[in-house]
């Protein structure tokens, strides 16, 4: 029978299943971080349980850590305590931790692929909703809560209801100036923030195949913003070349053997999906969000919508509430919106190619006087590589701050936050109320668009950047 990529991975990982019940699914890789794990370890301790498969769990510090002065103790006592607990828990339960001194430290969804921990055909979980990022490598990866973190630590398995399959096909060629971020924002804008609830999405089509591995990660990363359980792209030769030589992948002949197996994880011709959506790549323009969820998005040439023009009462109410929070008037041109802050970073857009693309826009220019801009690389490896390329110098010369790796202002658990009322062009994934700081106003964009906004002081259509 013709199977989808999702079904192949699912079937291979079912330990047991009974009709009418969730399946017991084996988890190949469990990634943990300091914020969603302490209560899980505490429960393990209380029950006197050991970690079932310590070789399959890897820990990093990313969510609450500072991105400056890393040689000094963490000033915030609550963050310092979580970091200490992560170290203690990893020591006691025998788990590998990439701590602040490690050259492998970084955002959990950046380091998984980067270190080769993430491999095609795997099941991967993490107590973080952006775990679908790893699906870019042809894996089934999804976010879980802390109780499930405990369950995986104790059993290396999870009870899972089989999701529906959803094929989102983007065909043709993305136009110049249109990024992977624009592709996923356009998809979310089309189907809504609950448009893929209960689904494992497979991104397909020629425009997806043409994306680099890092671009595929950007697309899969935001699957949760459409409500999807998982987002994935089948492994191909690009995936194999990306993984070759990475720290945790097999070496020599074993790698070739693994690669041959990895390439089998793809949707068979004729396989059926529960749902399908086709999008023409040429219909996608650079995107900017205007509201308080990622589905509230328009093209950069567009305008802030008018709630009065909406027939549906619930839509009218949510748009009005969003505009009030965002302090935007209906009909305002997106390019006329001035910004105070720029954040280039997060598990969505903090990899070397993201930074290199932003640097191209910035090179030889200056950040607008009214704007405070920062770049936060996704990992120590990204930071080092970017510095070798001289990207740090381009950003610093333009007036950007160049920081240490972490989640930073994507969720503002560390000191990197917006002040009330500040407006930010951000390459992160969520524009929820207060996400980047209480009262802060977030507009989601791709790295090039964020960089251009930093220079201009307002949103600009990156397709016209040459004229600036």
């Amino acid at each position, binding site marked *: 029978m013709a199977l989808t990529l999702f079904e192949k991975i699912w079937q291979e990982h079912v330990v047991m299943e009974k009709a*009418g019940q969730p399946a*017991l699914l084996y988890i190949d890789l469990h990634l943990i971080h300091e914020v969603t794990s302490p209560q899980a370890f505490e429960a393990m301790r209380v029950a006197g349980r050991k970690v079932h498969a310590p070789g399959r769990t890897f820990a990093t510090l990313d969510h*609450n850590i500072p991105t400056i002065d890393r040689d000094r103790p963490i000033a915030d006592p609550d963050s310092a305590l979580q970091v200490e607990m992560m170290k203690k828990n990893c020591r006691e339960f025998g788990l590998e931790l990439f701590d602040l001194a490690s050259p492998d430290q970084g955002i959990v969804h950046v380091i998984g692929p980067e270190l080769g921990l993430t491999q095609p055909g795997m099941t991967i979980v993490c107590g973080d*909703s952006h775990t679908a990022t790893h699906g870019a490598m042809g894996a089934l990866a999804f976010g879980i809560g802390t*109780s*499930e973190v405990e369950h995986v630590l*104790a059993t290396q398995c999870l009870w899972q209801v089989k999701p529906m399959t959803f094929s989102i096909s983007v065909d043709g060629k993305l136009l110049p100036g249109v990024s992977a971020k624009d592709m996923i924002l356009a998809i979310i804008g089309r189907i809504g923030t609950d448009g893929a609830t209960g689904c494992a999405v497979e991104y397909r089509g020629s425009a997806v195949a043409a994306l680099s591995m890092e671009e595929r990660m950007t697309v899969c990363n935001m699957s949760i913003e459409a409500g999807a359980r998982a987002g994935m792209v089948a492994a191909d030769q690009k995936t194999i070349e990306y993984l070759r030589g990475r720290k945790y992948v097999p070496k020599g002949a074993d790698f070739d053997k693994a690669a041959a197996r990895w390439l089998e994880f793809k949707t068979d011709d004729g396989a059926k999906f529960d749902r399908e959506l086709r999008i023409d790549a040429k219909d996608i323009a650079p995107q900017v969000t205007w509201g308080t969820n990622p589905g509230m998005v328009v093209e950069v040439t567009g305008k802030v919508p008018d709630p009065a023009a909406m027939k549906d009462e619930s839509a009218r109410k949510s748009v009005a509430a969003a505009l009030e929070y965002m302090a935007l008037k209906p009909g305002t041109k997106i390019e006329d919106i001035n910004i105070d802050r720029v954040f280039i970073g997060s598990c969505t857009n903090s990899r070397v190619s993201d930074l290199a693309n932003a640097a191209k826009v910035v090179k030889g220019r200056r950040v607008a006087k009214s704007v405070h801009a920062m770049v936060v690389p996704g990992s120590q490896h990204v930071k080092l590589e970017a510095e070798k390329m001289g990207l740090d110098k381009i950003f610093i010369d333009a007036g950007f701050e160049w920081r240490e790796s972490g989640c930073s202002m994507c969720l503002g658990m560390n000191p990197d936050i917006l002040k009330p009322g500040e407006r930010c062009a951000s390459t992160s994934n969520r524009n*929820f109320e207060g996400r980047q700081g209480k009262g802060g106003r977030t507009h989601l964009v791709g790295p090039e668009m964020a960089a251009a906004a930093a220079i201009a002081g307002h949103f600009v259509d990156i397709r016209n950047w040459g004229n600036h």
Partner: protein
Amino acid sequence: MKPFTNFTGLVAPLDRSNVDTDQIIPKQFLKAVVRSGLGRGLFFDWRFTPEGKDNPTFVLNHPQYKGAEILVARANFGSGSSREHAVWALQDYGFRAVIAPSFADIFFNNCGKNGLVTIILKPEEVDAIFQSIAKHPGYKLSVDLAAQKVSDEAGWSAHFEIAAHSKRVLLEGLDDVALTLEHASMIEAYEKQHPVPYR
């Protein structure tokens, strides 16, 4: 987990769709290392003014909803971040059930693991509840999980679907990990066929 028992509780209306978990409990409360005491962070940015006083316009601060045990909201409740703190905060505040036309997946799972009952009703049934709350101060609903039914004193009721397995876990207050460990031999057999791929 404590077994679920049927109850009748005061209903509080949160007339919003896409309520995300950043709203249910903001980031600063994620620095907790225990599950308890998170009720103070529930809907923090909506419940309190920047000066830290009760925001009188927020629904949970209206005196008639003090002591509410059931929250009713619009579609896609619990979207966004996987933070289980959202569930712990709702429970610590006193909620035992949430009613909405739909829930986000991870939040829905997290509720099940903690015994917070998520009740999916049709949009028109949710509408009816909002209207009843507006008309009848002190409006209460009874939740009967075994019968999969919510009802009020006036005789209105609605049926809801719940997976048989989830229902059993809630009704018996089963420990998920203990249940799984009953299948330890099958997990070990699986692992013999699938060794750790690293090093």
